[in-house]
């Protein structure tokens, strides 16, 4: 905030990023509307839409609530147990579900929770008949918690790890009981993260499509996204698709606004940069409950993934690994993942820094606050714009410029990057704010600028959140089918595309093998995400 020339560059980059996002979305919408000849006057809010909207709100709210409620004790347990063998693998495991195509995750869940699943088989052995049914609201919630709780837990964990070590010392010194510790130290941090995390999960669940239909048990369980898909694909009614998307955005936007009012980000505090020593970790009770929660997370997330691996191992992996189509899909998937992650992290960082720069100081102008608000809003709500709308819109826009298939990689990278933005923003924004609070004055006073600042001051301490954001963005892009399916040209085959395609032609074993490859690739990405996760032990030379 103290070097005018650099500030101008930062603000320009941030504004361009924001403008680019808005333009990317608006152009697609405009193209679709133009093609359809403007807004029609069809009845949008019929009884069907109301029912679907009600169900969307219900299942998304419950899924969010459950994900958050479970994530809190798990994040606390992981924060308190800062060093145990395999901790980093628990964290990596928790990043996996998001990187899997939802159908793969769903089939894994079914192997555990399904009618013929491990649980029901075990219970049947005890003489009970099919006591657990995954089909219905329970299944939807279960799957949403499986996919989203680990994400929330990791966001919360990152927040808890930013708590200054002095707080723990003070708490230990004062002899705070665990309940008080939670209420006065941990909860204020978590509450600050809540709107962002809960909003993200809500959006993911509200736009959930395959999971809701597959596990919902019937059309009573449909989301607005189903209606959008139906409108654009089956009825080719772009106006209706866009109107429904708008409904989805307005509804969720209002909810996010309420959430943001309820809780604000906590004030940033500064620390000496050491890993916190936890003085409350030694009581028998906390040890027991932490172990319990970590084991719960491990089994809950790990069991379905193990099922996915199990199915995968039964496939002819050698043949798959030697298949040139698989090689191409692998390379394409990685390239798209890397490209969209770079794009996403780049624009997210530019926007966060620009928003921080313009709102610094005593009298942030209204325009600056509006800009910062627009950044937060756009990084959230972009998730609600269905990729099917973006894809169709850009297809129309690019058609005059020749073979659309040539542009497909760029568009897919852009769409995937956009869809990862909410995640990346939530990982980077708090870390960058803390970092700015710690170093802005000092670097300004010493005159460390530009690339030097980036290299010496910003990158090293931000390496961990940057890598985490990058790996999340890659994993998300990896598991995504939506954007690729729209452009579907035979020249651009990704792993999920190949997986669905094999599954669609009876080749279930091949599909299971590909799911295993996807899982492995995702694991490699998450290893990159936890690469910066080695902590300096307190008070020891390194």
């Amino acid at each position, binding site marked *: 905030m103290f070097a005018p020339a650099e500030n101008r560059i930062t603000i320009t980059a941030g504004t361009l990023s924001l403008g680019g996002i808005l333009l990317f979305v608006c152009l697609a919408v405009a193209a679709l509307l133009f093609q359809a000849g403007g807004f029609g006057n069809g009845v949008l809010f019929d009884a069907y839409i109301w029912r679907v909207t009600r169900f969307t709100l219900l299942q998304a709210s419950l899924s969010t609530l459950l994900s958050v409620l479970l994530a809190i004790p798990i994040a606390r347990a992981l924060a308190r147990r800062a060093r145990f063998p395999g901790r980093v693998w628990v964290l990596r495991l928790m990043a996996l579900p998001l990187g899997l195509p939802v159908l793969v995750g769903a089939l894994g869940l079914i192997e555990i929770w399904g*009618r013929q699943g491990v649980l029901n088989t075990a219970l049947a052995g005890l003489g009970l008949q099919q006591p657990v049914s995954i089909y219905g609201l329970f299944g939807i919630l279960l799957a949403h918690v499986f996919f989203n709780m680990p994400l929330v837990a990791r966001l919360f964990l990152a927040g808890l790890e930013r708590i200054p070590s002095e707080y723990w010392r003070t708490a230990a010194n004062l002899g705070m009981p665990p309940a008080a510790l939670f209420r006065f130290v941990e909860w204020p941090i978590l509450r600050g993260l809540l709107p962002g995390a809960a909003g993200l999960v809500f959006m993911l669940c509200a736009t959930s499509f*395959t999971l809701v239909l597959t596990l919902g048990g019937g059309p009573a369980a449909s989301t607005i996204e189903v209606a959008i898909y139906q409108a*654009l*694909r089956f009825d080719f009614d772009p106006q209706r698709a866009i109107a429904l998307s708008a409904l989805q955005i307005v509804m969720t936007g209002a909810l996010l606004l309420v959430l943001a009012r309820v809780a604000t980000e906590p004030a940033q505090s500064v620390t000496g940069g050491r890993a916190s020593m936890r003085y409350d970790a030694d009581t028998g009770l906390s040890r027991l409950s932490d172990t319990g929660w970590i084991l719960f997370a491990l089994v809950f997330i790990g069991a379905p993934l193990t099922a996915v691996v199990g199915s995968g191992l039964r496939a002819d992996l050698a043949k798959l690994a030697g298949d040139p189509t698989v090689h191409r899909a692998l390379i*394409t998937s990685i390239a798209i993942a890397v490209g969209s992650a770079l794009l996403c992290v780049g624009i997210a960082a530019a926007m966060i820094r620009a928003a921080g720069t313009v709102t610094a100081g005593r009298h942030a102008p209204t325009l600056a606050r509006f800009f910062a608000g627009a950044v937060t809003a756009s990084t959230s709500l972009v998730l609600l714009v269905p990729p099917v709308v973006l894809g169709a819109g850009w297809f129309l826009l690019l058609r005059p410029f020749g073979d659309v298939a040539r542009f497909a990689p760029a568009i897919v990278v852009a769409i995937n990057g956009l869809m990862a933005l909410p995640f990346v923003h939530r990982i980077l924004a708090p870390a960058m704010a803390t970092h700015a609070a710690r170093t802005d004055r000092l670097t300004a006073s010493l005159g460390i600028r530009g690339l030097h600042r980036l290299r010496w001051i910003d990158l090293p301490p931000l390496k961990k959140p940057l890598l985490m954001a990058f790996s999340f963005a890659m994993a998300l892009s990896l598991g995504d089918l939506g954007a690729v399916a729209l452009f*579907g040209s035979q020249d651009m085959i990704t792993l999920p595309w190949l997986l669905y395609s094999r*599954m669609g032609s009876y080749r*279930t074993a091949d599909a299971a093998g590909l799911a295993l490859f996807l899982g492995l690739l995702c694991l490699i990405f998450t290893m990159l995400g936890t690469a910066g996760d080695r902590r300096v032990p307190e008070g020891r030379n390194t």
Partner: protein
Amino acid sequence: MSKSSQLKFLSRLALAAAASLVFTTGASAADKTLTVYTYESFITEWGPGAKVAEAFEKTCECKVTYVGVADGVELLTRLKLEGAASKADIVLGLDTNLVAEAKATGFFAPHGIEAKDVKVPGDFTDDTFLPYDYGHFAVVYDTQTLKTPPKSLKDLVEGDPSQKIVIEDPRTSTPGLGLLLWVKAVYGDEAGAAWAKLKDRVLTVTPGWSEAYGLFTKGEAPMVLSYTTSPAYHMVAENTDRYQAAEFSEGHYIQIEVAGMTKSAKEPELAKQFLGFMTGPEFQSIIPTTNWMMPVAATKEPLPEAFGKLVNPAKTFLLPSEDVAANRKAWIDEWLAAMSKN
């Protein structure tokens, strides 16, 4: 790995991938090119696409280029997005339910082929679209867990609710729509009531065929809505007759896959030639064991033995495409109402 070598590694990967992305299946300039839009599974390496192209190219001194999209419905969406400027000469892979809608776009030209060798149950004929294969929808069941499969749609509707079936959603998938029309064809105005009864047997309604079949082969339900030809795949490719189709006494609803040529075709003669080739023995012989559908005309050799074991419906249902287009929304609403009741 150090940071810089990591970066180098990543950028090399990105380059390699970019190189693979720009790769296109361009034709050599000398030949004429026939562009065929089709669904994606037609052109996978085990699909009929490559063999069909190879066989046709031998007869035409031309190059066949495919553009693949997700499925038949997407094919029509793609055409609507592209409008008259579409590069397609041939659109292959629509089904009979989409024919009226496809014609309404005005993009298609009459094929002008007599096709008297083409024989499809239900005697479908059309001046714009030519059939190239067909299959009947059927309830496929697992013989290991279901000893007494339903013998009719009535059996299915009224049978033991604890024996579950997985079906597809008519709002998002072709087989889902197929079952909807099947029930409509059999029950007529009573379709809503039939769905309300069937609802208890439905384990879940999936967005597409893949999800439903995946649940079925995982053993979650002993029945799934699929095709009469599904068992052929398991018999031929996996050597098992565990999965069988149930023959329904009322008859089965048919799915006929068709192709047509566009008005904007750059090579209309070639397109016409392709449509003729499509109903010939060369093409028809490729279809059964690659697309896992029934041929519509004579094949060079007799069909594999497994096809003889398949259900051969005594009666075929096919509602006129115009009726489907006109009533689809009302029928889906009826389905929704019946299936959403508690």
